[in-house]
């Protein structure tokens, strides 16, 4: 932003090249940088905190263990003990989305999950795993997912398309929910913060008026932290539920 009085709430989502490999080759953008940072932080933290492997954990180790147990209980709860073979997958997704969202809460940081292409890639990855494992494990019986139990034959022509659409809508709802929450939250935050600047430049009365958006900004920041954690949780829960469908395809 060149002009400090002009507020551009979309500016924060802009993608800039940091460097690129050759002319028009693979570019390392700020988005990629923050993905690397996200993975690096997760990896570094988990490795360092569990390096001691103490029986009585230190604080850092206890947090790692809590994260493990939290996700493990979630996977066990929605996909059963059989679903635990997907625990690394769900844990990786949960940690990536959580840390990426939390990175987004730092001022001047780029939010990876505010771009739909990232969340769609994650959701499609989930769907590829669900369909792939479902077909591998159950073969043609996987198609039973689209034929609910105990439905008379003559309504199947109506019910099956509905079930198929319901299944196809999953990656969309999974990705759009995460992306929309993060995008909308960040824009709202920026717009309210922009009001402070605009009102503050109006003189004494403006200063008083600027108090209101300031309070709102503080409140929304707290809400955003909640949303960031919640969306990571929802993403992981739904992933394990969809995996449950792949493991036990009949409803």
């Amino acid at each position, binding site marked *: 932003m060149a002009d400090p009085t002009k507020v551009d709430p979309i500016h924060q989502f802009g993608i800039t090249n940091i460097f690129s490999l050759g002319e028009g080759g693979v570019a390392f953008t700020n988005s990629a940088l923050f993905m690397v940072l996200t993975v690096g932080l997760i990896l570094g933290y988990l490795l360092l905190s569990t390096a001691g492997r103490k029986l009585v954990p230190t604080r850092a180790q206890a947090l790692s263990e809590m994260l493990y147990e939290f996700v493990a209980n979630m996977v066990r709860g929605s996909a059963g003990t059989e679903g635990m073979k997907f625990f690394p997958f769900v844990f990786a997704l949960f940690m990536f989305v959580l840390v990426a969202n939390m990175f987004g809460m730092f001022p001047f940081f780029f939010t990876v999950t505010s771009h739909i292409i990232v969340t769609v890639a994650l959701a499609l990855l989930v769907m590829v795993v669900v369909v792939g494992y479902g077909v591998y494990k159950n073969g043609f019986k996987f198609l039973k997912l689209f034929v609910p139990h105990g439905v008379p034959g003559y309504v199947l022509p109506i019910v099956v398309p*509905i079930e198929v659409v*319901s299944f196809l809508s*999953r990656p969309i709802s999974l990705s759009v929910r995460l992306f929309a929450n993060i995008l909308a939250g960040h824009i709202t935050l920026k717009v309210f913060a922009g009001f402070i600047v605009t009102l503050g430049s109006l003189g004494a009365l403006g200063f008083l008026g600027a108090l209101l958006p300031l309070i709102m900004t503080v409140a929304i920041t707290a809400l955003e932290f909640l949303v960031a954690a919640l969306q990571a949780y929802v993403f992981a829960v739904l992933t394990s539920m969809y995996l449950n469908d792949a493991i036990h395809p009949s409803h």
Partner: protein
Amino acid sequence: MANPPKEQRPDGSENKVTNDLASRIAAAKRDRAVEEAETSRRASGDTSQMGRAVRLGSEFIAAILVATGIGYLLDLWLNTRPWIMLVMLLVGFAAGILNVTRSVAEMNKAAPPPKDADLGSADDDEDDDR
């Protein structure tokens, strides 16, 4: 959990201590399990209200968008605009409702209401209202 050796030892006093300790550990474990279940239930009920709302909304809309999109593409392919899209819009609406009812059923199963909660009419006369 393995039982501590009870009658195998001739020395009575030490056995008593082990038995006592074992039962105390078992009791503490039971208490902790109950407490953990309680806190996790409360936490999921309190913090995810907003998550639930957003989840239901997005699931409903996603189904409609997907179905309408499929219908539109089929129309482009078969040159039947706009008929398949209209039919698929309705199918998508139905699928959206199905998504919502299904996730609400899952939520209810995950967090059943407490036993003494007043939910209106009892189970047996519920069918009268329909």
